[in-house]
């Protein structure tokens, strides 16, 4: 395992000698482009999906809370004095 890792150049090695144009190229070829699920593990499509799901979940949680907050505010305003 250790040997295998030593054989692999670290990205820093690559970047130490890099210029702007190489960095822009890296930004394009490493971060974008067609991904066939399972073939490129960095971008694991499944993880993307999980996180998209999570994002939706968090958004809806927040929305739900806002609704609850509004209702609580309305209740508090309706009463003579709101307290927790």
């Amino acid at each position, binding site marked *: *395992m250790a040997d*295998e*890792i030593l054989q*692999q*150049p*670290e*990205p*820093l090695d690559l*970047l130490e000698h*890099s*210029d*702007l*144009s190489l*960095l*822009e*190229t*890296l*930004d394009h070829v*490493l*971060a974008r482009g067609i991904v066939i699920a399972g073939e*490129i*593990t*960095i*971008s694991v499509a499944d*993880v*993307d999906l999980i*996180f*998209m799901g999570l*994002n939706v979940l*968090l958004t809806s949680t927040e929305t739900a809370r806002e609704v609850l907050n509004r209702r609580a505010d309305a209740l508090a305003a309706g009463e003579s004095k*709101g*307290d*927790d």
Partner: protein
Amino acid sequence: MKPSPDSPSPVEPEVETAHAAEFIEELRRVSDTLPPRINIDAQSVEQGLAKLVLTLIELIRRLLEKQAVRRMEGGGLSPEQVEELGLALMKLEGKMQELKAQFGLAEEDLNLDLGPVGRLI
């Protein structure tokens, strides 16, 4: 962009800026989060997992902080409650720093590029 029939001439993308140094710094930051090799192995999975879990904790921690600030602003908390809440979140932040250090992760590592959805934090 005329095709030359004989030798294929690659279109060399032009890069232009008056502030090269700044962009190099920023793009390096982006590139630093890219993997050294495009493959899966046990070690990178483990690192990836730690990153994933800590990112989620960080996200929840920030949501808690926001919520705490919102409650404080709402004025429904007593000064004692505010103080207690603040202390708890302060400890949480400290603990998080420890964990990050333990796994050798920097602040900017605890984020995920969600592609079309943008970044997580």
